[in-house]
């Protein structure tokens, strides 16, 4: 037969296609499997860029994001972990591992000649049943502030325990909970600023109630201002360009040049005067401030901070309650920001500007300290995960126990369902429950424990009504999760369950893979 496709394009059909996607997806799942759980190991990622930069992490989303993958099914898994990261922030590894396990089970079923569509409908029923089982077992402590806070602490500690911060998890959990509580229910994590400064130890990290801007104060300007009035601006403070299109300066003598230069300076001076006219003593600009206006500000005793990045500006405007100004003609109606004290502080060797006593208490800054950049980066990622989970939990305060407990609960219910269901679907439902059990197994395996023994013990334990047993990795035995305070957010677990099933379903439905010829690129190297 003639070729229908272009050269280099390939086509795989039926069994082969299914095989290719199963293998790809499972390879990805196996790759991140070892990072799961409190005793999970980290991965070193080296970039192919010029710097050969190295990242050490055990965050599933970060690992998968940096992989170059050619297998289309594997890409589906990478995509779900990314979405999990965007949506709830944590559980990025679990979702991939669960999807991988589902496909592993599906592969066995396909090998026994069960049609993929039958498997899918079984999986769907199982997922629905598992979700109902979970939502029946949730605990909601929204009304009890004291208990809610301890829930949050537990969730934060559970999330952090699988990360590099596990040594100081109590400290960081407290930081994260404090920061999230300040947001008062909003999920906008932008107002929590994380500043990383190498040096010191992780324990030296702290939460600052004010706002810290990673900038230096101009020379000759006051280093400490009490009761500051702040104008936050986004305006050109170099030479104020004429914006009318096509304007250019054309002169015929040196004297004229000098005149225009003076006019320009005059214009700048006027602008500075106008800004000073707002009655401020601190001026923060997003763009550069040239020497000349800086000098003028210094003369007027005004603290001028240049080149604050965009996020910094927005956050500063948010915390001080000022508006971001670009024109200065109506000083009376521009809202100025206020804070009690601006001072220069030292963290390690770096000078930073610290705004304390700000008008709006929503924002805060977490300063991370640590031995190296790698540690700091990883700490930031871990903390980000914790913050995301917490902020989501504040909105949806339903909480579950951790340590493999939810998986056992789901597996038990799904097993029950399998027994009740007639037809081939029940095989798929059974397979679903086996895939769920794989997660506690992997957690135990990663901790070097006898997983088969532990999981079977756990299963026996779960036959009792109202059981709270899970795997306690620290002591290496089955323990009471409620007592140990190991908690997970319902929203995370639900998202893991649903996205993993969705992804597995999607890959199962494929019976043909068509790969187009790769686009030729000019070699840029």
């Amino acid at each position, binding site marked *: *037969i003639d070729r229908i496709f272009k050269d280099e394009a390939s086509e795989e059909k039926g069994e082969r296609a299914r095989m290719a996607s199963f293998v790809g997806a499972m390879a990805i799942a196996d790759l991140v499997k070892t990072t799961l759980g409190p005793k999970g190991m980290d991965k070193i990622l080296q970039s192919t860029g010029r710097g050969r930069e190295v990242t050490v992490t055990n965050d599933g989303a970060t690992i998968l994001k940096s992989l170059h993958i050619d297998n289309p099914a594997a890409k589906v898994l990478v995509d779900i972990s990314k979405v999990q990261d965007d949506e709830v922030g944590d559980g990025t590894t679990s979702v991939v591992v669960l999807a991988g396990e589902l496909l592993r089970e599906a592969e066995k079923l396909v090998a026994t000649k069960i049609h*993929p569509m039958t498997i899918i409908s079984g999986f769907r029923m199982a997922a629905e049943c598992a979700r109902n089982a979970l939502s029946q077992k949730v605990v909601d402590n929204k009304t009890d502030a004291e208990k809610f806070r301890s829930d949050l602490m537990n969730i934060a500690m559970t999330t952090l325990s699988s990360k590099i911060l596990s040594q100081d998890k109590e400290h960081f959990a407290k930081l994260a909970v404090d920061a999230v509580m300040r947001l008062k229910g909003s999920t906008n994590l932008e107002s929590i600023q994380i500043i990383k400064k190498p040096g010191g130890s992780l324990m030296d990290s702290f939460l600052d109630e004010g706002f810290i801007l990673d900038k230096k104060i101009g020379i000759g300007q006051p280093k400490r201002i009490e009761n500051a009035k702040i104008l936050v601006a986004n305006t050109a403070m170099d030479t104020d360009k004429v914006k009318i299109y096509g304007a250019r300066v054309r002169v015929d003598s040196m004297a004229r040049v000098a005149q225009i230069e003076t006019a320009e300076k005059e214009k700048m001076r006027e602008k500075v005067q106008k800004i000073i006219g707002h009655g401020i003593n601190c001026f923060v600009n997003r763009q550069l401030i040239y020497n000349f206006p800086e000098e003028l500000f210094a003369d007027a005793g005004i603290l001028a901070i240049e080149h604050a990045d965009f996020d910094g500006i927005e956050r500063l405007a948010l915390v001080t309650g000022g508006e971001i100004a670009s024109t200065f003609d109506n000083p009376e109606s521009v809202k100025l920001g206020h804070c009690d004290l601006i001072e220069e502080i030292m963290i390690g060797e770096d000078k930073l500007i610290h705004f304390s006593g700000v008008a709006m208490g929503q924002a805060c800054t977490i300063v991370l300290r640590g031995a190296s950049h790698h540690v700091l980066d990883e700490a930031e990622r871990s903390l980000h995960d914790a913050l995301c989970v917490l902020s989501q939990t504040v909105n949806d305060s339903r909480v579950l126990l951790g340590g493999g407990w939810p998986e056992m609960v789901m597996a038990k219910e799904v097993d029950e369902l399998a027994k009740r269901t007639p037809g081939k679907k029940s095989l798929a439902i059974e397979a679903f429950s086996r895939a769920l059990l794989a997660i506690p197994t992997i957690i135990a395996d990663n901790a070097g424990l006898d997983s088969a023994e532990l999981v079977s013990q756990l299963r026996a334990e779960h036959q009792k009504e109202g059981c709270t047993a899970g795997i306690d990795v620290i002591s290496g035995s089955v323990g009471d999760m409620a007592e140990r305070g190991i908690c997970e957010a319902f929203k995370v677990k639900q998202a893991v369950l649903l996205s993993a099933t969705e992804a597995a379903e999607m890959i199962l439905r494929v019976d043909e893979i068509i790969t*187009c010829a790769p686009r030729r690129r000019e070699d840029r190297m």
Partner: protein
Amino acid sequence: MALAFDEFGRPFIILKEQEQKSRLRGLDAQKSNISAGKAVARILRTSLGPKGMDKMLQSPDGDVTITNDGATILEQMDVDNQIAKLMVELSRSQDYEIGDGTTGVVVLAGALLEKAERLLERGIHPIRIAEGYEMASRIAVEHLERVANKFEFDDTNLEPLIQTCMTTLSSKIVNRCKRSLAEIAVKAVLAVADLERKDVNLDLIKVEGKVGGKLEDTELIYGIVVDKDMSHPQMPKQIEDAKIAILTCPFEPPKPKTKHKVDIDTVEKFQTLRLQEQKYFDDMVQKCKDVGATLVICQWGFDDEANHLLMHRNLPAVRWVGGVELELIAIATGGRIVPRFQELSTEKLGKAGMVREKSFGTTKDRMLYIEHCANSRAVTIFIRGGNKMIIEETKRSLHDALCVARNLIRNKSIVYGGGSAEIACSIAVEAAADRYPGVEQYAIRAFGDALEAIPMALAENSGLQPIETLSAVKAQQIKDNNPHFGIDCNDVGTNDMREQNVFETLIGKQQQLLLATQVVKMILKIDDVISPSEY
């Protein structure tokens, strides 16, 4: 090859550089064309029906698409063969015209080609085959009219419409929540439909997707959703009873199209220019304010200064809104798109009951909802889903469902699905064949056989015994003289498609038959393929 001699026996050239070209002619050309067409149909065959499988497509840039929408698969397949390209065109035109049945049309064309090949081997001239097909398709289309049912729906009883959309959606990955999606599609179409003129402008339905959440969170919004946020972070996030100025001119200094230069040679000029500039910004904002706008939506960017002025005057604004969205906003809010500030006036403002900004997930994604518009004729379907591919696939599936609903509003006739219409046509065509004298009779009979390919593929994909099932259904149809028996793909237990509520639109089915016949005719008529050989 093509070599000719003049009267003196000298060769002269007909084809330029003919050594470098490959050429196929006669039966070989037809055979190779047919095999290419069949190869394309074979790819799509397994995607047909509610139990059809998906295809995973990797684009030249490595992006992955998972779909079972025939048009999309062929579109992205990157085919090289000319005949295969014709098949791609075929499904595309079905997509443009009807929007659904894109897989079926290709499978049918493939079956027709296969049957034609047998007839060619028996020495029947391709043109005779083509003519026979043409006659047969006419018979089939007429028969479809006869078996078609009118079905009634109105604003109060949407159930039939929803059922039809559910048939379309059941073959897609979204069939988990086909009920709610079908309801969304029907409501959306009815919201924009002009029942008087029986016309539906699908441009008024915008389908937006955002990764995250679950498929069940998909919602229909009576208004517009724009993937933009307020130009200044401190502008109000919620505006009630908004009066919207829709602008296509930037809040920037003017840039005349003619080439010009402003020369600055004295200090005075420098200063006047500066004042001019400031005044210009001020005027722009003042004009918007004067006509009473409480929200500005602009196609272009804002200068920092203008942005602050807007914020300062308490006039929220949105920038960089795309042209299509701008038009939709204009339609929905009943406003006019204003190309110049001078032309702003109160009556040109659009009105919306509520404009609000909504944020999603842990990232900073924000979207602008414009709701309770003056003219509710524009709606948005907002899809949520676990990952990008699901959302893309949902978009495609919803598009199909929307098209089906639209076709039903245009023409209320339906035929029953599950292959029942094809079987009925096949019976009719075969019965009619005997009445035609001549070679065409064979072609007509072949057409009847080819029609069975669709129920056959349906049965095969559903894991049934294809031949057994098909012959049983066919016998049943003839025995009871009832054209509503089809393949029971979902294992419901009845073959009667009326009871299963599986419908398709009449025009969709007719279009499938006509388009497939046309393409097959075209392919059969080719007897010479000249192509540049490998370079």
